[in-house]
Each structure stands twice: as C-alpha cells, then as structure tokens.
C-alpha cells in the first residue's frame, strides 16, 4: 500500500465533508451523452463507408463478370455444358436424366451379373473422364472440340447402358422360352 493510500484511509472523514457544486450530476450526464453521441457518429461513418465500398464492388462485378465465367466456375476451374448456352443446357439435362434412369435400372441387375458390374465400373470411370473434360472446357476457353467430346462421353455412357439393357432383356427372353 502506498503512503498516499495510507493517508487517505487514515483521514477518510475529512475527505467525505466536501459536497459537489450544484448541477454537477447534470453536467456529468451531459458530458457522458456527448461522448456516446460522438461514438455513434463515428460508427455511422464507418458503416456508410463500408456500404459505399460494397456498392462499388457489386457495381464493378456486375459490369465485369459477364466477361468472365461465373464465380463458381472460377472457384472450381471447370465449366459445364449448361454454362455454354441454353440449348447445351437442354442437352446436358436430357442426357443426365436418361443416364440416371439407366444407371438405376443397371444397379438392380449388378449384384449377380459380372458384365453389368464391370459396365457400372466403366460408367464411373467415364464420369471421371467427363469431370476432366469439364476442366478442359474451362482451360481451353470453351473449345468446340471439348464440347463435342463431352457430348460423345454422354452418348458413350448412354449407349453402354442401352446395349446392356438390350442384351439382358434378350437373354431373359431366351431363358423364359
């Protein structure tokens, strides 16, 4: 404990005798309000600047983004057929839905059929190749040859499913005779 503290404690009564001048509390409260107001003002300025910066970024992005690919494409470094045009999006949708249907029907057969199992493995490999093609589409600046290869990949997978379905249907027919 310092000497000053010891002195104050020892002479506490002498210190309690002084009364604050009139209006001291009001003045003190006004000062406090002013300080809070100043703090609020500086917060408002900060948020106004932040909003202005955000607005500038959004405006700049809306002007510049059409010249580049979408943020998701940039993030993953790949493009899908649907990113090329509305018509390509239709093609992609058609094949994806047909493949999903065919894949499901093959899955039902795969447990006991080694040929189907092997074909399903190949379908998975072809899907991986398709993902690679999506990357190449992005890297090539949407080259026509990659688009053709992507459609060919879809066609190949669908043909594999259809050929197998046909083969299995034929063998079922033979068994039932």
């Amino acid at each position: 404990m310092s000497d000053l503290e010891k002195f104050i404690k020892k002479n506490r009564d002498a210190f309690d005798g002084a009364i604050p001048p009139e209006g001291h509390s009001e003045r003190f409260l006004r000062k406090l309000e002013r300080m809070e107001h100043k703090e609020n003002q500086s917060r408002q300025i900060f948020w106004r600047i932040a909003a202005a910066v955000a607005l500038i970024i959004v405006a700049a992005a809306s002007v510049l983004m059409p010249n580049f690919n979408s943020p998701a494409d940039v993030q993953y470094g790949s493009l899908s057929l649907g990113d090329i045009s509305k018509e390509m999006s239709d093609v992609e949708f058609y094949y994806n839905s047909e493949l999903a249907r065919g894949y499901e029907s093959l899955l039902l057969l795969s447990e006991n059929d080694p040929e189907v199992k092997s074909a399903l493995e190949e379908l998975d490999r072809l899907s991986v190749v398709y993902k690679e093609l999506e990357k190449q589409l992005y890297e090539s600046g949407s080259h026509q040859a990659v688009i053709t290869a992507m459609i060919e990949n879809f066609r190949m997978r669908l043909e594999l499913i259809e050929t197998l379905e046909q083969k299995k249907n034929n063998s079922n027919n033979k068994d039932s005779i």
Partner: protein
Amino acid sequence: MKTKIATLVMLALASMVQLRAQEEKTVQKSFAASTLSINNSFGDVDVTTYVGSKIEMTVVISVTSSSKSSPAKELDKINIEVKEIGNRVDVSTKNEISNQKGVREFRIDYTVKMPENTNLIVKNSFGNTTVARVKGTLEIRQQHGDCYVGEAIGANNTIKVQFGRLNGGAISNADVDVQHGNSTIASFNNVEARQQFGNMKVGELQGVIKVNASHGSFKSDRVLPALTRLTIESQFGAVELSEVPKQGYRIDLSGSFSTFKWPDHMKVIESEKEITSASYQIQSQNGGEKLIDIHASHGSVKIY
C-alpha cells in the same frame, strides 16, 4: 428417342455458329536431334519420314473467332515452346486462351518430316495423330482423336489411344492400348495389346502376342507360322482366329459362360466340361510346340 437427341444436339451446336473471322500464323523449325517429343492439343500431328538428317517441323496455328473478339489477339496467346536438351527436342503447345467467355475454335497442326531412325514421342488430344513409318522408338499417347500408324518397327514402341480409333500397318515390339475405340491393324509382331470397349481386328499375327480384350471382340485374319505364342484373355466379347496353320500348334482353350469352336482337322487331347465352365486342349494332327492359349469369360471363341 435417338432422333430427338440428335436434333437437340444439332440445334445446340447450330446455336453456337456466329459470324466468324480467321487468322493464322506459321512456325517453322529445323533440328538435328535423335529424339523428338511433341505435346499438343487441339490439332493434328502428322509425321512422315525421309532419307535425310534433320527434323523439319511446320506448325500452323489458326484461330477462328466470333466478331466480338479479335482472332489476332487470341493468336498471340498460342505459342510453340521448344526445348533442346542434348540430342532431344521437346516441342509443346502453350495456350493461354483459357478462362474466357464464348465458344472457341482454334487449331494447332504439326507437320513433321524426320529421319526414320528418330525416336518419336507424341502426346496429342482433340486432334488426330498420323505417323508414317518409324524405325526408332515410338511412343504415342492419343486422346479424343484417331491415331494412324503406318509402320512401327523399332525395338520398343508404345501406342495408347483413348476415345479414338487406331489404324495401323505393321506394328512390332509394341505395347498397344486402345480404350473406347476400334482398332484395325495390318500385322502384329511381338505385341502386348489391350483393347477395352471396342473391337480389335488384326490382319496377321506373328512372334509372341498377348491380348487382353474386354467388352469388345478380337479378330485375326491369319496366324502366321512365325507365331510362337499367342495368349488371349477375353471378357464379354468374341474371339475369332482365322487361318491357323494346320501344323505345329497346340491350343489351350478355357473359360466360363463361353462357347468354343475349333477346326475339324485338330484333335482334342483333353477336355473338361462343367455347367458354367469348360477347358479343352487340342492340337494339330502331328502335335506342336507353338502355343495358342485362350481364356474367355462371358464370350465366345471361334478358331477356323
């Protein structure tokens, strides 16, 4: 259904056609080297051989663009990089046209004239590769395009084709791998071949041949007497061997869920047949030391 999707694809492709402008530039190089390596995408690689000492190379780069973008600017973004290390020259296409909006069409076509003893390595995709006749080591890795090999008669060759056809003349001492495409080859001599999801047809077989075929057929027109051993592993496809010599061969056939057929002039030495599997050992009338060994699963084997 197929007509519907064909129309859809045609419409989609037609929608991408716009007013276009084209620009091209030509790069010519000449080297004295024993090994040439070419790494390309989006164009053809055409290699011929000649009696000479230098490798002469011409590369034509062409860009076709819509009226919105300048083909000349894009042309500047495609360049040929050449690295010469000792007796080896590595040539590769450098393309900086990525990450831009709109459909692109550009080509980088290589035409090479080289001495036939030159070792050649070609990696090409989205274009075709044609190699006339190579006596040196040949290594081709081709994707999304066809491959034509006139003659590969060097000591050690590799030809790998994915998503394209392989057409070849005489192929010797090679490792051949074709996936998702058919292959038609005039002759195999000491070859290990793998064919998946496509059919392989070889005119003549000689030397030691090993074939692994799945989801496609393997057919040969003629087995030459110079064939000492042929091993075929086949899954989900047909094997057909025509004109197998009447003298000097033993044929081992085995497999499951498969059918086997052989010529009448050959005699069965041993056979074993279960419900789903079978094995046969047959041979020429006077026996034989050369071996044809075929194992089939879910397929058929016919020998004529």
